[in-house]
């Protein structure tokens, strides 16, 4: 073999391995778990399960399936916890959270939080742990809170706990008034509602059209501004006044709703539930529209409006859902003193909301206990509170 051929052969053999190479990385070193020093929760163990991390053709693929075991090292019972998940340098600063609401963990007891994440990113941005897990907040049984609250998790967990108290009280009342049989019937109805509740898939983007829109570029003239109809709940401290969104096919852009505070107290946060109706007349709970931003303080009798710069695209089983009508209702209110309002069971029952709205996390948990462990286990669970 000539020198020329040998040199080329060596070059070719040396270059081949870098093409299409897959390197297995250590998933444990890709995650950093941070709890504050004065945290009422202590990290006992991290089970990485079948987590995998690999470098595939210049892209890092991280598949994390972790179970974090935490111990309540404080004195009060823990009713909820939220963990903040951040992916280092992930543009545009996307972040997530994993929450465990509706728990009841006494001092010294342990509980587990599952964290399942898939991260895909170019390898050139790498350096240090890819994913960081931090404590965002802990809610206690007296509704006091600990944590940096970067995600407003105090508010979210307080709403979940208030709904949980409402629904436990309701099912306990059913048990007392109608006995085991009545409670069993209520649970069967709840399970049926959950199974039948129509759901939508949503793609959400800012400033522009969402990916997968069915609106062709040439038919932009087909857009129209649609007004919200409102379902007024008599006990709501805040009422919607008017609202609209730009609609085009299965897209809704910049939904906005004006509200008025009819209570005697200043309000800090309002959320409007948002139902959409398709061409066939089916109604879905699309989501929610904020009636306020995080800096708002709405005095009694005053009006407020917020314009989110988001575009939402609705689909169901892979097919676009064209929007024909929209209905809004007040679903959550937080007062300036931290107290919250949620619709009562009577509010939900007297409207179509009980059928359309997702059940509270607690109702979902109680229905799961009933379906998997039976009526006796459910009664025992209700009697714990």
């Amino acid at each position, binding site marked *: 073999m000539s*020198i*020329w051929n*040998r*040199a*080329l052969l060596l*070059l070719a*053999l*040396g*270059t081949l391995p*870098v093409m299409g190479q897959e390197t297995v990385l250590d998933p444990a070193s890709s995650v950093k778990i941070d709890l504050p020093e004065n945290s009422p929760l202590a990290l006992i163990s991290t089970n990485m399960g079948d987590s995998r991390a690999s470098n595939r053709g*210049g*892209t890092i693929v991280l598949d994390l399936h972790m179970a974090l075991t935490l111990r309540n090292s404080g004195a009060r019972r823990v009713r909820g916890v939220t963990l903040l998940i951040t*992916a280092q340098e992930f*543009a545009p600063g*996307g*972040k*997530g*959270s*994993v*929450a*465990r*609401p509706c728990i009841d963990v006494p001092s010294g007891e342990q*509980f587990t*939080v*599952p964290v*399942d*994440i*898939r991260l*895909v*990113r*170019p390898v*050139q941005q790498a350096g240090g742990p890819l994913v960081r897990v931090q404590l965002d907040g802990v809610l206690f049984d007296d509704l006091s809170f600990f944590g940096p609250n970067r995600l407003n998790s105090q508010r979210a967990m307080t709403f*979940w706990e208030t709904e949980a108290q409402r629904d436990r009280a309701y099912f306990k009342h059913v048990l007392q008034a109608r006995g085991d049989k009545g409670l069993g019937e209520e649970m069967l109805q709840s399970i049926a509602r959950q199974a039948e509740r129509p*759901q939508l*898939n*949503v*793609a*959400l*983007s*800012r*400033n522009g059209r969402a*990916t*997968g*829109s*069915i609106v062709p*570029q*040439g*038919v932009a003239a087909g857009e129209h501004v649609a007004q919200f109809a409102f379902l007024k709940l008599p006990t709501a401290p805040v009422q919607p006044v008017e609202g609209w969104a730009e609609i085009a096919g299965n897209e809704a852009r910049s939904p906005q709703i004006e509200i008025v505070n009819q209570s005697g107290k200043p309000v800090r946060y309002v*959320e409007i539930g948002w139902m959409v109706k398709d061409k066939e007349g089916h109604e879905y709970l699309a989501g*929610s*529209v*904020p009636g306020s931003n995080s800096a708002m303080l709405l005095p009694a009798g005053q009006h407020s409006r917020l314009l989110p710069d988001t575009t939402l695209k609705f689909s169901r089983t892979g097919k*676009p859902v064209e929007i024909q009508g929209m209905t809004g209702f007040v679903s959550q209110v937080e007062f300036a003193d931290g107290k919250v309002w949620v619709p009562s069971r009577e509010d939900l029952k007297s409207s179509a909301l009980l059928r359309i709205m*997702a059940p509270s*996390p607690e109702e*979902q*948990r109680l229905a*799961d*206990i009933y379906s*998997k462990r039976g009526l006796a286990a459910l009664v025992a669970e209700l009697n714990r509170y």
Partner: protein
Amino acid sequence: MKTHPSEADLALFAGGEAGRLSRFFVNRHVRECRECMDQVNQFELLRLELREFEPPPHDWNRLAAEMRANIHVGLEAGECVRLAAAEQRGWSPKLAVALASLLLLVGASFLLKSPAPNVAVEQKAGAVLESTGSGLELRHGNSSLTLLNHDGVAADQTVSAQGEIRARYVDGGAVTINNVYLE
């Protein structure tokens, strides 16, 4: 327009590339023709999918380092052969050509190194947050962050127009709520 527009006209219309007159007629037709509207939608979806597709980025630094290392190996191997052959034949013009070619290759690898075009594409494309059957996915350029439902269980999903999607499921008797935020 009594007949259906051609497939090519529908494709151009979906891509916003039809002429003004053609756009007017096709637009008028598809508003009343479900079949053509469906086809336009399919073209539009396909176009969006193609727009989102990007080849995986290459680690040019690493490729260049590998190539440099291989060239060193090649040079050393060539040197061994040259020393043995030099005693018999002296200086080889073929070796000089081979080495010059390799140096040219190294130069080209440095020129190809810049990742700037990828960055520009990433900045142009906006982030999209989407609920899928398996979880909540936030995509931006060729990066993505997905919070998965544990063991693939079905989840209730709700969206806030403020820029977040929430997925809730019951597993092992406890409720887990995943949230992903679009900032």
